[in-house]
């Protein structure tokens, strides 16, 4: 066998297990869930073909879908906007050579490593109306206790707060790395050109980390849109109180594993996929247009 053929064969063999896993656990499920979305199936009785009935119900006869959609949108925006602003500022502050800055960076990135489930349990404690830290601290300032996890509106706020807390370190790491890729001489040239530190940040740093910003936004949208772990642990599997935190991820889980309506849940999953895909393509298109303009 020629060396080239040998290498090609080795290449195929090396990739095979990996590809196999991908096919079984990724591609097959993809196809199968699409197939299931056209069925009605509860796992015990055989599946029944229902055509587009699931989708029709979803879009026209299920008020909870719209609520979930709205909640998910609110949660996504309520996570991403603060995350972006805070992480931009945090990365800017961390992007300098100061003594012990390494230690601060290590500390600020800690939320990256901790389990969101565990943190949700902890935050439940923080948000507790009677004994929680936040209401206690508000009490010191003379402000009334906030019904964090009891009132539907405030529950969404609490959710966003925890989500932002968890996402800021990730975004900060990515943005910081991008900022460090901006050559020092560009900053020096801008300083000599008369730019103040703020001006330099806005006119030089931010445009040059466009790629990272766009990446953070896209990843954050994908994660926030599918949020489940956090919501389940912080406010329970019903999206309470009173559907205040009823997001698409919860709805999916409910229909699949509580109601055992796998067909409907699959239809929902594919609708979510389609929305996500559209959002991602839009964002990529937008990012590219921005980079051409500047």
């Amino acid at each position: 066998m020629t060396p080239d053929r040998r290498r090609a064969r080795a290449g195929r063999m090396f990739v095979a297990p990996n590809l196999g896993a991908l096919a079984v656990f990724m591609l097959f499920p993809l196809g199968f869930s699409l197939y299931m979305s056209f069925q009605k199936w509860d796992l015990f009785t055989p599946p029944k073909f229902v055509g587009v009935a699931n989708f029709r119900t979803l879009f026209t006869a299920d008020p909870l879908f719209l609520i979930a959609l709205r909640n998910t949108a609110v949660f996504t925006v309520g996570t991403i906007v603060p995350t972006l602003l805070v992480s931009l500022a945090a990365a800017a502050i961390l992007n300098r050579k100061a003594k012990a800055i390494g230690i601060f960076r290590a500390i600020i990135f800690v939320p990256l490593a901790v389990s969101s489930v565990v943190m949700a349990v902890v935050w439940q404690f923080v948000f507790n109306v009677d004994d929680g830290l936040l209401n206690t601290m508000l009490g010191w300032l003379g402000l009334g206790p906030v019904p964090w996890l009891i009132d539907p509106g405030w529950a969404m706020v609490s959710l966003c707060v925890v989500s932002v807390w968890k996402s800021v370190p990730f975004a900060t790491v990515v943005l910081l790395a991008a900022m460090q890729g901006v050559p020092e001489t560009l900053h020096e040239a801008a300083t000599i050109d008369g730019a103040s530190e703020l001006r330099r940040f806005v006119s030089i740093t931010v445009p040059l980390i466009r790629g990272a910003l766009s990446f953070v936004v896209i990843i954050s949208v994908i994660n926030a849109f599918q949020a489940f772990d956090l919501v389940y642990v912080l406010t329970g599997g019903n999206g309470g109180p009173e559907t205040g935190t009823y997001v698409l991820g919860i709805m999916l889980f409910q229909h699949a594993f509580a109601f055992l309506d796998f067909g409907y849940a699959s239809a929902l999953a594919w609708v979510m996929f389609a929305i996500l895909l559209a959002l991602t393509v839009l964002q990529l298109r937008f990012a590219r247009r921005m980079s051409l303009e500047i």
Partner: protein
Amino acid sequence: MASVGFEHATRRYPGTARAAVHDLDLTVDDGEFLVVVGPSGCGKSTALRMVAGLEPVDSGRIRIGGRDVTDTDPKERDTAMVFQNYALYPHMTVAQNMGFALKIAKLPRAQIRDRVLAAARLLDLQPYLDRRPKDLSGGQRQRVAMGRAIVRQPQVFLMDEPLSNLDAKLRAQTRSELAALQRRLGTTTVYVTHDQAEALTMGDRVAVLRDGVLQQCASPRALYREPANVFVAGFIGSPAMNLLTLPIRDYSVAIGDWVVAVPRDISDTAAQVVVGIRPEHFELGSMGVEIEIDVVEELGADTYLYGRIITPDGAIDQHIVARAGWRDPPARGSRILVRADPDRLHFFATDGRCLRRSY
């Protein structure tokens, strides 16, 4: 008045043993083109950055136009800098790059446009105004960097090895264009380079730095003919001056067979002396020291011979570089006799100081 002054300026990087720039005392006159030259690590870029305000001054003062700017922010010093790698803003067009500083200074848009166009005309950049830096060649980028400095109409131009990233031919061409441009604009310029040929051809005066200490600051001609110490003598001029450390015996030194008289005032006070001879001052002939040629470099107009001195009792490993005419240079391996006019010799003390100039 836009002179630049270093007054006992010192900068030491934290954690290093010696200062990057030590007690530098130098004045650049208004409108002068001063070149700061030296080997890498000599502190020339640091000195330049001290004028820009990018490097803090540990002790001493910096003055621009008579005003003490040591504690002033870079953005208030009214200087413009051309960086070695140009530091163009990659996300802006050429026109935006050049106009950035003016936009910050809140100049009216019409005025910005006029100045940018004028500079573009001066530098032949008009066709490129709407392009991004990544679509330009190295030479074009270099001109944009110059343009960015010119539109500011600053008091001082600061240039940090702006030509070192260009290929040799472009470098030579841009050298003369740059010098002509500076003469035309009349702006005080401090120019840093490691290339001594650049220094000699461009500067009104040249300051030679070594290990952070100023060795000599003089016109190119004075630097070449009257080097103040051994370092300057060996640094300026290519190929370098021949420097031979020899013991003094009977008021003279022996270079191989060739005996050179040493002036009385020198031979009275020292036992050794460093003799400096420029390659072009050697004459090939029937008298002088015998050398065996190792390498013959034919450069077209000149030929340089690299060889070793041969004493009556065998070869010494003292190397000599001599310039021969372009006609029929001697062959490699052959032995020739060379000597120089005693009036053309330089004498230096063993600690490097210049003792007697030839001219």
